[in-house]
């Protein structure tokens, strides 16, 4: 029985490594709330490599334009067709931003068009309950980026399963701190991250 290993997808363009603390923080949360066997560190895998298929959940973020190469596009399509899940988060939290525009365009070309994920989706109850859908982030509530509180996440589905989960909420900033600093928070804001991982592992 192997461990769950958190995987960050590396793409040719952009700053794919803009949230280096998110993997450790989510790994910490998975261990903190579940008995899931989890590797203590994450890995970074090029989106265009066959290594990607070793990690059926991958996380992708950045601020800069996302331009997939043809190899990355083909790999991602195959990855999703086989049951892999890609979690994309806009580190700019800006629907007018260049990451959002370029990433949604590329995902559309590679996997399919993104659509709003209903807030009653199984993702929001896969471990913790999120009655109102995706939790808001401080960056949304502070009015940065596009100054919007996004009511829904977007997703590309294969059947009724999520193949690509897309967030404009900037969880990358929200979760981008050292896991030891969780002790300063009255409410752990990474619990939704646990839901994403448990959803990928069980649905």
């Amino acid at each position, binding site marked *: 029985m192997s461990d769950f290993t958190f995987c960050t997808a590396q793409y*040719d*363009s*952009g700053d794919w490594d803009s949230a*280096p*603390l998110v993997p*450790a923080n989510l*790994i*910490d*949360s998975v*261990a*903190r*709330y*579940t*008995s899931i066997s*989890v590797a*203590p*560190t994450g890995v970074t895998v090029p989106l265009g490599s066959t290594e990607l298929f070793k990690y059926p959940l991958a996380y992708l973020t950045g*601020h*800069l*334009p996302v*331009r997939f*190469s*043809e190899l990355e596009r083909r790999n991602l399509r195959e990855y999703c067709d086989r049951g892999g899940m890609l979690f994309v988060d806009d580190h*700019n939290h800006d629907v007018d*931003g*260049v990451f959002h525009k370029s990433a949604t365009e590329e995902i559309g070309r590679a996997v399919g068009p993104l659509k709003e994920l209903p807030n009653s989706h*199984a993702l929001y*109850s*896969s*471990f*913790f*309950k999120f009655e109102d859908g995706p939790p*808001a982030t*401080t960056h949304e*509530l*502070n*009015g*940065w980026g596009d100054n919007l*509180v996004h009511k829904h996440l977007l997703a590309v589905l294969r*059947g*009724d*399963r999520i193949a690509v989960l897309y967030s404009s909420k900037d969880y990358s*900033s929200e979760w*981008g*701190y*050292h*896991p030891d*600093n969780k002790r*300063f*928070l009255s409410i*752990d804001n990474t*619990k939704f991250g*646990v839901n994403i991982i*448990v959803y990928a592992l*069980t*649905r």
Partner: protein
Amino acid sequence: MTVVERVDRARRTLRAAAIGAAALRGVAAALALLLAAAVLDAFVSLPAGARRFVPVVAVITAAVIMIRRVRGGAAKSDTGGAALWIESRFPSLRYALVTAVDPRYAGAVPELDQAVAKVEFEPAVQSAARRALAAPAITVVALAIVLVLLPAGAIARVVRPAAGDALKLARAGSRTNPLATVSVRVVAPAYAGLKDESFDNPASVRALVGSAVTVEGVQGDGPVVATLSDHDLAATESGERWRIAMVMPAVPTAVRLRAAAHERLLVLEPTSDSAPVVLLTSPARDSILRKPAGEIHLAATASDDYGLASGAFELIVSSGGGENFTFKSRTLGAATFSARTGQLTATLMLDSIGLQGGDMLHIRAVARDRNSVTGPGVGTSDTRTLRIARADEYDSVDVDPAPPPEGEKNALSQRMLLMMAQALEAKRAKISHGALVGESRGIALEQTRLRKRVGDIVFTRLGEAGEEGDAVDKRIDQPVNADSVLAAADRAANATVGTALEGNEDETPLVATNRPLLEAYNAMWSASSELEIGEPGKAIPFMKKALDALQAARSAERIYLRGKTRAVVVDIDRVRLQGKDKGAPAARTPRQPADPARDKRIARFDVALQLVRSSPAAAVDSLLLLRLDLLDRDAGAARAIETAANALRGGKDATNALILARRALAAVPSTPVALSAWGSPP
């Protein structure tokens, strides 16, 4: 006229007649062939491919016959031969003529000339020439008359065969099935530059999305109606023909043609116009530039299946870092195309776009095709990224980020409270007054708590943190006069710091920093007052003002430290199950089978198979509808079914095609047998 001259003249007459007769026979043979093909086509409707050969075969036949006949008449092509031919018809010459034209005796024996002079053979020669020409000429004329009398369409199908001429043989009439013979004409969108196409009795038509598709037939038993995606299209009538025009839809669709008791299915299969393929050839790879100076040669190639319209290089410059990125974009080297392939070239002057250290330049080539119906299709190349190195490129800072500062928490909470108040105001009409006041007071309580926290920050910064307990609580339980508070603080601060560093001339940084917080404090006080009396609507403006003030305060102070962080290795054993919250996962829902409709499709195919003998037309329709369902799911099975349907419709043996189609439909995936046969039933 000498004997030799007379004979030579006769020879020329005979030769001309022979050549003329040969030509006429050749023409007659060609006409006979055309006539036979036209008659045969009227009965069995020859395929266009076969009809295309008929004129060629007719011409070749005519030429062969003519050459053979001319060669056969070569015996009379010299003077001796002509003399012999005359001798055979005038025995009284007793070889005098042959001898007289013999070069050895020509003119040397007067007796021979005299004997020949007595015989008038010219009329016989003329008569023979006329006879030779008469029969083939009559044949040619007779065949030509018959061909002229044939229906125009019949001979045109043979002489100028073309796809779509099936209707030329069909005859209108009240008993005619108007759907028995149909012709489909496809006019592709103008941008594609494709020739128009016509098809006789097609089961399916493939064409570009947006193509004009016209179905045509001869009128007969009842008006023709086409059903396309649940709406009916009536046929227009013109002379003996009916026509229905439609546009090739974006998804495969079955058109059901109906007339009285007759029905026919036509499948419209759209083909898509691919987006251009663009290849950025220069710069060939990503790189890092020391200085934003110099020029870069940009080059790209583009190609499209129907034709390119335009192309350009797209540049995006991203500047900044951390949470503050700015972007600017522009295009370069725009070009228009009128062919299927094109090249883009440009020179980028790096000095001209204001690059700074740390900026990133993203370059890609973009091409658009001429698709004016569903497009234009946009093709993009891979992106190359050029980064301008910073002066401190190799400096690094190890930073452990701290938790969010207090100010951010306040902003977050104020936004949340504002949203709660807005939500309460929105549902005000739907809830009772008691409930409204209750919820409003709940928000007011939170607002008051937040106000106290803001107050703590402000007064701590203003150097009064030492005054704890009742004194502070007492003071911040009422709106404060910001100016008096700030003035006191400013005095105290100036006494130690000295001169102002920035801000308005009359305001020190301390004042500039804290004024928004005090404004927020006061707005919060007003908001909580309104909320206390159950007026969330009136509280909202104050809450918004408080939020704006908090954000202004935060902007004034926000500082980010960025650097390469250490790789964090989580101590799994230490944190395992230390979380305070417990999860309660919802039940999982099952996945759908990989192809839930497979069995239904096989059953539909089996039903169609049973119809093959009793009602082939119905079987063909069933197969075509089944194929429609398979087009985007199983191209192999769809192709096999199409072959079978075409064979059935053409009255050919479809056994093999049906077997292949069935095999493709019920395909069993091959799997490696990892286990032995132990698992077979006992």
